């Protein structure tokens, strides 16, 4: 009996392996583009957003796409080998931790075009790209500052690294611009994705008296949890309006497809090759439409909150006294120009200890933004690595 079972199982495995290696006949020679994801495409956050963009690319351009999901950081090279073996001529690696592996693979495959998201190392066949949210967080902060009644807004952060700190600081600067008394209470998850942790962190912030939430975590947990107490929130990364239509005010949406489409069109046109990417860096923001303000595409601010934002006024040097709603619109217009007319990280800015971090007349450069560690005034709570 046992023999038979194991033989049978062996047969199944053999058949499965054989099936897996039969090439699925596609005679057409399209450009093959590979994507390597750090998480599962079902995460409804970072990886999901890249995958949505991948599918749009496949619809709009004459390319064939391949992808690998849930690749551990630091173990990207064998997966690059596999995609190259499957014929990929362009490979996107979509996590910071893939940087060194991608650099090594780019040397090994000099004829393949590589692009690495969120990193800073480039080569003749390796470009970098990033769709960043700091402007959008600033705008969310303006709204949060106007809407908080307890003068405590909360932020559930993933890891205390420059990327998240930049977003948190931008959010805090926005909050304090409208509401100088408000504090920004912080909790860290030490995880990009953990619904249980996000949930208990939200509960801890609720206990602090926080009534408006923003977060960096790849699930709608913070929104669902705060909505149970009828507290307001800003969505992160994916369309999350439907998780709490009465409490979600706005949020950040990403459009990776703007970068992928632009990059691949230039590859198809022969403009980008495996020889000229040394200086190709996409740092795309509102002006390039790589990111969008809102919790649902096309809905910048939940209509339920428009009147409250219109009735709260703020004094500004540039525009005089105007409503927060109008201020948000003006700032979006300013940041949609290229080059931008306004930047949240234009000096003078002090950190929460009173140290001047951005002198007057200076605006933080991309290099400074991607390595910043300081905490903005009003941020309350632990801040690992604070200078």
């Amino acid at each position: 009996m046992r023999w038979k079972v194991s033989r049978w199982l062996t047969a199944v495995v053999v058949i499965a392996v054989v099936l897996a290696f039969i090439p699925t006949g596609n005679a057409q020679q399209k450009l093959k583009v590979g994507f390597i994801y750090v998480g599962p495409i079902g995460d409804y956050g970072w990886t999901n957003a890249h995958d949505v963009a991948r599918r749009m690319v496949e619809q709009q351009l004459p390319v064939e796409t391949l992808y690998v999901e849930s690749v551990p950081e630091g173990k990207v090279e064998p997966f690059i080998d596999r995609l190259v073996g499957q014929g990929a001529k362009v490979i996107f690696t979509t996590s910071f931790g893939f940087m060194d592996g991608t650099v090594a693979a780019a040397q090994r495959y000099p004829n393949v075009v590589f692009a690495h998201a969120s990193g800073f190392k480039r080569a003749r066949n390796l470009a970098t790209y990033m769709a960043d949210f700091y402007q959008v967080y600033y705008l969310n902060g303006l709204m949060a500052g106007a809407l908080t009644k307890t003068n405590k807004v909360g932020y559930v952060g993933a890891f205390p690294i420059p990327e998240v700190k930049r977003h948190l600081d931008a959010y805090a600067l926005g909050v304090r611009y409208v509401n100088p008394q408000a504090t920004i209470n912080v909790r860290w998850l030490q995880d990009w994705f953990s619904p249980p942790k996000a949930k208990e962190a939200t509960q801890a912030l609720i206990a602090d008296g926080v009534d408006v939430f923003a977060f960096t975590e790849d699930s709608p947990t913070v929104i669902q949890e705060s909505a149970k107490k009828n507290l307001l929130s800003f969505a992160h990364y994916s369309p999350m309006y439907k998780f709490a239509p009465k409490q979600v005010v706005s949020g950040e949406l990403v459009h990776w497809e703007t970068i992928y489409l632009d990059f691949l069109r230039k590859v198809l046109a022969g403009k980008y090759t495996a020889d000229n990417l040394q200086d190709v860096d996409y740092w795309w923001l509102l002006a390039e439409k790589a990111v969008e303000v809102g919790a649902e595409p096309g809905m910048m601010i939940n209509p339920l909150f428009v009147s409250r934002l219109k009735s709260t006024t703020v004094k500004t040097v540039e525009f005089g006294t105007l409503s927060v709603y109008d201020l948000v619109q003006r700032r979006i217009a300013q940041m949609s120009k290229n080059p931008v007319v306004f930047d949240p990280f234009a000096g003078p800015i002090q950190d929460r200890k009173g140290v001047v971090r951005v002198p007057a007349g200076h605006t933080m450069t991309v290099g400074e933004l991607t390595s910043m560690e300081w905490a903005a005034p009003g941020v309350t709570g632990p801040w690992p690595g604070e200078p």
Partner: protein
Amino acid sequence: MSWLIDVLIRGVAFGTPLLWGALGEIYAERAGIVNLGVEGMMILGAFFAFAVAQVSGHPVLGLAVAAVIGGSAALLHAFVSVTLRANQFVSGLALSMLGLGLAGLLGRGWEGSPLRTPLPELSVLPPLGALLAIVLWILLYHTRWGIILRTTGESPAAADAMGVNVSLVRYLAVIFGGMLAGVAGGFLSVAYRPSWTEGMTGGIGWIVVALAIFASWDPLRAVGAALLFGTLFHLSFRLQAWIPPEPLQMMPFAFTILVLAVTARWGARKWQAPEALGLPYLRGER
């Protein structure tokens, strides 16, 4: 005072899936079978509970289906570890990975929408879990069934000699454990956080395995242990301004190792693992 109550309520909320999962694991291990597949059974339960609740509008039906799914997954483990007498640890680990992968695959396209009809977090399952713990404790220590179950885990040869069908008892215990793990997973997706996301169990299954040991395989102690672990998890965020979260989140595992070490050295027999835990039983051996 209200602070304390508030923290305890959070402890109950996060402790509920831990308790349900641990009660199941305790019964399986009492019969002598370690099932490290809790994480896999939970995530399958979480997905099916969500999908069924979303389609039918009945979260309780979702939980029932989660129990069936968890039991079916456990059946696989029982077949491999009882009938084929393969290594239980490897089989359990494989079940965890299989469950995570399968749930992720089936869950494609289900992420990104909230459950239409969620179950209130503190409504049915927390009190039912406590009640279940009491019933399981009475069954285990004060009934003939309990003697059969414990004997099967302590000395399957003796149970066999008593006329007990060792394989049957082990099958039933493992399947029952899987059903409870399925419900625990279902609780996560229909009540604790009513939506589906891949990998949403986030390692709770492993805390469950530790909890069964920490509670020294006693259903009543599991209630206190689940409350303690749940409270610690919440406190790791509540106290973050003063205490870094890592030590508090490590605590369940540290406690478990401590308890294992202490009971192995000084503990009475009844505090220790079932004698035949993890060992396949073959009639006539030893």
